[in-house]
């Protein structure tokens, strides 16, 4: 089985050499093609940093990161953008919908980033699947928290990414909405054989995943 994500001896440090903060310290792991993996650990252990590195939004100080076999360390900003939009969907804790775009336009934006235009019907059908058909022309400020997160997930999935990176996707939701959201992500991942990497503090949620990677002080425990 191919590795969707592969970290080899990856370190991430911040700050000047005299006062170096080691966020990740020589970690190595891989996530398979259709695997659902949760990353757990206390605050500051480096969970989100792994997501940032896997998404190519942060550069590793040391080591190698491969996405579907393609090395992304040392790759230029524009090429990273290409890799990201072709392979990766990201779900944030705070949804981060664009406030002056409607639900439909937020989802379409993801397609447009991939140079896929005039696919309104596809976006509408996904939003319909997520129970948002009556909300497609609403601005984010007119949606509830749960609805906003569903739009955010639809935006991450519309491109049919091979990898979904979710950073505490239920952190800002109540339990009912959380469960709906997680079901959506798991269903999609299973059906489409997509890798899902989930950062969470929620142990029951972590246990639903195929595998748990536990971090402590920047190292895999």
């Amino acid at each position, binding site marked *: 089985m191919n590795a969707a994500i592969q970290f080899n001896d990856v370190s991430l440090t911040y700050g000047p050499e005299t006062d170096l903060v080691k966020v990740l310290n020589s970690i190595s792991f891989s996530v398979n093609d259709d695997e659902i993996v949760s990353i757990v650990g206390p605050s500051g252990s480096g969970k989100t940093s792994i997501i940032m590195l896997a998404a190519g939004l942060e550069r590793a100080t040391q080591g190698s990161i491969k996405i579907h076999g393609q090395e992304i360390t040392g790759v230029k900003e524009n090429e990273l953008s290409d890799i990201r939009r072709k392979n990766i969907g990201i779900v944030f804790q705070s949804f981060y919908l664009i406030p002056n775009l409607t639900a439909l336009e937020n989802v379409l*934006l993801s397609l447009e980033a991939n140079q896929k235009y005039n696919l309104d019907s596809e976006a509408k059908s996904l939003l319909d699947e997520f129970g948002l058909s009556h909300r497609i022309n609403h601005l984010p400020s007119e949606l509830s928290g749960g609805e906003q997160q569903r739009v955010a997930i639809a935006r991450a999935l519309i491109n049919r990414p091979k990898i979904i990176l979710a950073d505490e996707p239920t952190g800002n939701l109540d339990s009912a909405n959380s469960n709906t959201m997680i079901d959506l992500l798991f269903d999609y991942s299973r059906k489409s054989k997509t890798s899902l990497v989930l950062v969470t503090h929620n142990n029951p949620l972590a246990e639903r995943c195929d595998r748990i990677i536990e971090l402590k002080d920047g190292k895999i425990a």
Partner: protein
Amino acid sequence: MLDYQQLLFIHRYALRDITRSYKKLWVISTTLFISLLLLSLTFSVKHSLSNEIEANSKELLGGDIQISSGIEPLQGLILEQLSELGQISETVSLATMLSKKGDTSVFVDLRAVDGNYPLYGEMKTIPANAGQELLHDAKRPTVLINENIQNQLRLNIADEVVIMGQDFVVGGVIASVPDLAQSAVFGEFAIINKDQFDEFNIGSRDSFLKHDYRLKLNQTEDDGKQIELIKSIVESDKNINTRLPKDSGQSLRRIIDNFSNFLNLVSVSAMIIAGIGISNTLLSFVNQRNISIAVKKSLGFSSNIIQLIYFYEILLILIFTSILAYCIGVMSPLLANDLIPKSFDIDLQTSFSFISYLNIFFIGLLVVLIFSIPSLYSISAIKAVALFRNTFQPVSLHFSAKNIFYLTLLVVVLVGYFVFQTEQQFFTLLYFMAFVVTIFIFYGVSRLLISLLKRSFDFSSNSYKIAYRNIVAKKSLAPIMTISLGIGLTLLLTLSFVANNLKHEISQSIPSMAPDMFFVSINKGEKDDLESFIKSIDPNVELEFSPMASASFVALNGTPIEEIVSGDNRSSWIVRGDRRISWLEKPNQDNLIVRGEWWEPGIQDQMFVSMDSRAAFDLGMKLNDKITLNILGRDVIGTVKNFRKVDYRDISINFAIIINEAFATKLPYEYIGTLKSELSADTIQSKVIGKFPNISAIKIDRILSKVGEVLNKIFIAVTGISLIVIVIGLIVIVSAVMVQTTFRRYNNLIYKILGVNFPTILKAMTLEFAIIYLTLIIFALTVAMMGSYFVVENILLLSWSFDPSLTLWIVFSTAAVSFLLILIANRNIFNPKVYPLIRNE
């Protein structure tokens, strides 16, 4: 490279973004629109005026060719040859007195025209047939006068007037003449019939006549050949000059060029200040949208695509505002028609021209690019990782080596584009340089203020503490207010100081130095009689007479002068046409010799020349150069012996060229005189004209009030136009204030929770404004005083003086308006509601 679908996406996204965020972009739209409108108005009116001059060039010249023979009429043989080529109209012009019978007089530009006048266009008069009657059917000696003469002498049609002792009847009022004379519009202008001019021998009483012949060529296939033939007929006589339609309206063209250049510079200044606003607005726009930008990056959009979207939004705003500004500008000639004096008989037409629009758009594009690059390139500093941590730091203007290269290139293109479009390239370049230096000065001033405040902060007042924190804060108003208001105020103060100095010179300094009256056209034989007559009226009178003759400058060291001196030379007036020269045996005390020596008296067979030192410098003369003057049709070569410092400001008798008296006594000449008396100038004038009808007596106060009037109008226009720069500056400040509203509301909310009351916040805001304004005004005043001093002392050659009341008026009125606008823009932050903060809304 972007494909069509990507471009379409950028277009759609930008359109959608603009329609949903237009409130945040109003500053960009408004400031761009105002500055583009000013530019468009200038271009459109200039374009229409130039078209009008071009289209009416034959009317403006009065014929297909104009031949001027100066004092003497053309020889009969030449006239005969010319008459075979077309129809000739002869005009004789002179300056003389026109008096209401038994009443006051005015000095007028008198034209005697023949029955063929005008060859092109028509002379409009009231009543309409007055021109026809004057030229073809005058039963009595008749004169047509312009409105200025009518108003001054309170004349009606059929009233009797006296010109050079001859009675004339007013036949009508001239509304306009096609061959536009400036005196017809701004001065006193009258027309008589050439036959009556000859019949009453008026020409013989004045030695400074100007004979012009205009030709309407016979209809042939080749006008060019006929023109060449005419030139060959008259070329043997150096006193004869020819002018073609393309040369007509040159003084008008020069005025239009100068004024439009000034307007262009003001427009571009306004646009640059608008650019500062654009830069500030875009930066805050980027900062307000940092999350959206980060999300786009997380979705895979590159910084370049996001920058392109925003650049395209600005481009769309520019296209929209420039089209609107251009359309309004194109209509402006219709408005200008109402403002141009009717006597110009100019009917400007609106004309759409894509090239003109592109011109405005291109300038707008350059300014917009220059000011949006540092703001929009800051997008690259927004990172998508911030979405995970929710830690967004405000980005600032981005100046990378690549950006600086682009900016330098764009600035050079903008300046070059302006400089190469104007006639006054050196001054335009100087203006741009001064402008850029001023921007840096004001930016430095704001940094200096912040630095000084940081060092001297030890007041215990709460208001001062809040004001201090606002000024030294990262998002302080100080830099943007100092630059945008500082430049506008500097421009306004500089122009006001220059205009005020000029007005002061005209209304006070000159009258105190100048004589009360000039006498011209005094024949040799009349001088002594005139002197004793005036002394009999006022024994204490101060009288000064100088002999003068007419001469034209032909060559310098054997080279024709027109090959040496270009039209834009500051002293080219000395070599253009006939000049009056005088002579002296001893140097005049008022004219200090700055180089060379005065000549030995009594040398009759050689001509020595004393030149105005400034003119000599401008014309590139050296001591002992050989000057060829044409005096009454004869070329005479003289040696330059010395240069004199001539001060023309006192309007006393001053000559640029003075020759030695022993040589000049052989010349035919007349006198010019000045008078200073305790008696009323009106009394002396009417008595002198009554006794000496051929002598023109001109009152100086009339000339000065005329000049003052024109200057006043220019002052109002210039001040009004420069106010636009301040208006743009104020919009930029208001926008900067509004951008900070959220930040300040939050601060004030915290202050309110901590117990600070409304009066304290208001006092703090007043103090903040006062500190910044006081600082910027000190520097604006300093720069304006230095700038105006340079212009007044070195270019206008006047004495600079400072007017405290004008300064205080400008400073306080601008402060009041600015502060009021800032208060209005800040109205939402005075009493913020606590509830939204608690709810974290």
